């Protein structure tokens, strides 16, 4: 611990270093300095920086080879994004590329790792990605990478319902058309949406490979104007196909949970939880909140409307997609992430240094951690000991946490545990309190739903 880490080293012109306090430095080579200055002067970059969609760069006159980037509160990676977020990142990449095209430049790579989200707003973070295009080049040199990292995963998710993390956690550089091809049904191979991104590249790869040199290279157009028109058309076509991949139906076992709760006793429970949270928010005014097991983000929304920056986590992709769509519509400062807490995202990439693990990113990051109706899931489904869950929550917050105790006799607890409900009879308020008091001091508690649920407001004890 205590060491700075190299988190990006693939670009020969500039390597990224992450310091302990979250500041990011970019170390440039002399040729990198020249490129940086050229890129900074581009109108596209300046206007995107003005709208907060391009990462800021601070230069130091004494050290021209070192740039400083502001830290993004919570970096997230493509394998944690909702489907809509990957689509938005793809559309944003194409838009940036089209803007650059009008200045005779283009992005040399098209990776979702070039984009981070601040709330639901995408930010382009790879400052050295733009390169000068050759004047009459027809097409985009990163077309293949775009198809692998954005288009094909989204297509397979949309058509075959393959979860995005299955593809993006396993393949840093996306899914090759040849890998995707066998996943399509015999009839599905004739669907217009898959012909250009999957079927044709696979056939070309199979039958048109000649020798050990790359089989295809971009052609030059008749004139600069023609090349510009053709490239623009190709990019427009790509955004159109991405736009058709909007999430289909949004139903899952948990996406209707809020509706279930609007029935009978559920309504009272909902209201009580809402009021408890609102009271805590207005009293403590937390700047940042982590909502664990957020479902469709009802409570995150309340916190965001009251001025907190929220990171909301749930393992259900449909819930996260809905929360993302709602946050975009209402312009809420919520970062919805699709993560299974029983199997949190690991550190990935070369030497496991290119991405940070979820746990590392969460540690001591939040003023408030909200744990409504989650602990019984972790106890039953994941078999995590209660003490370990409380310790984990304590590691994420610097201030307060809200827990919900659920009685093993509660309908939802019984539904999850099934016949093994007898194994959880020990989960009494007394045992729960004891577990909390190891890491927290209990400030307030409120019994709801006829005593089958208790809400606890806890203050983190200073770390030993």
């Amino acid at each position, binding site marked *: 611990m205590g060491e700075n880490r190299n988190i990006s080293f693939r670009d020969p012109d500039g390597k990224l270093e992450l310091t302990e306090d979250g500041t990011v430095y970019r170390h440039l080579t002399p040729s990198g300095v020249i490129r940086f200055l050229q890129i900074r002067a581009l109108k596209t970059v300046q206007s995107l920086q003005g709208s907060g969609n391009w990462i800021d760069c601070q230069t130091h006159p004494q050290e021209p080879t070192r740039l400083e980037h502001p830290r993004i509160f919570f970096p997230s990676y493509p394998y944690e994004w909702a489907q809509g977020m990957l689509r938005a990142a793809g559309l944003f990449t194409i838009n940036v590329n089209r803007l650059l095209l009008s200045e005779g430049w283009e992005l040399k790579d098209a990776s979702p790792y070039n984009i981070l989200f601040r709330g639901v707003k995408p930010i382009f973070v790879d400052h050295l990605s733009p390169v000068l295009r050759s004047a009459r080049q*027809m*097409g*985009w040199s990163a*077309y*293949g*990478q775009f*198809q*692998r990292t954005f288009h094909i995963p989204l297509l397979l998710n949309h058509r075959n319902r393959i979860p995005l993390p299955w593809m993006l956690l396993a393949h840093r*550089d996306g899914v*090759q*058309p*040849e890998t995707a091809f066998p996943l399509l049904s015999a009839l599905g191979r004739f669907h217009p949406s898959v012909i*250009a*991104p999957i079927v*044709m*590249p*696979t*056939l*070309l*790869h199979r039958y*048109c*490979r000649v020798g*050990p040199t*790359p*089989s*295809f*290279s*971009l*052609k030059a*157009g*008749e004139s600069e104007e*023609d090349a510009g*028109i*053709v*490239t623009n*058309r*190709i990019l427009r*076509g790509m955004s159109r196909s991405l736009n058709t991949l909007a999430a289909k139906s949004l139903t899952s076992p948990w996406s209707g949970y809020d509706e279930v709760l609007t029935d009978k006793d559920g309504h009272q429970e909902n209201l009580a939880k809402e009021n408890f949270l609102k009271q805590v928010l207005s009293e403590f005014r937390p700047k940042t909140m982590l909502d664990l097991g957020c479902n469709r983000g009802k409570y995150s929304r309340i916190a965001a409307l009251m001025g907190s920056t929220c990171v909301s986590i749930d393992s259900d992709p449909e819930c996260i997609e809905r929360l993302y769509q709602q946050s975009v519509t209402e312009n809420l400062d919520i970062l919805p992430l699709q993560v299974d807490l029983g199997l949190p995202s690991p550190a990935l990439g070369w030497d496991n240094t290119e991405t940070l693990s979820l746990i590392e990113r969460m540690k001591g990051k939040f003023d408030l951690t909200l744990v409504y109706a989650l602990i019984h899931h972790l106890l039953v489904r994941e078999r995590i000991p209660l003490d370990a869950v409380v310790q984990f929550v304590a590691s994420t917050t610097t201030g307060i946490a809200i827990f919900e105790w659920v009685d093993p006799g509660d309908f939802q607890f019984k539904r999850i545990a099934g016949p093994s409900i007898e194994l959880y009879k020990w989960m009494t308020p007394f045992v729960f309190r004891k577990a909390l008091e190891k890491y927290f001091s209990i400030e307030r508690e409120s019994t709801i739903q006829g005593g089958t649920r208790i809400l606890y407001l806890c203050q983190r004890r200073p770390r030993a």
Partner: protein
Amino acid sequence: MYIDPGAGAMGVQILIAGILATLLTFKRNLWKILQNIRNFFKLGA
């Protein structure tokens, strides 16, 4: 085995670019032909 990543995708892009460029030329030429026809009738008038 030699792996040529993205070769197939680039091939597709080249095909699409080729088709678009042809259409562009065709559109321009068609416009020229139409203009010529118009001019011919104008001259006739």
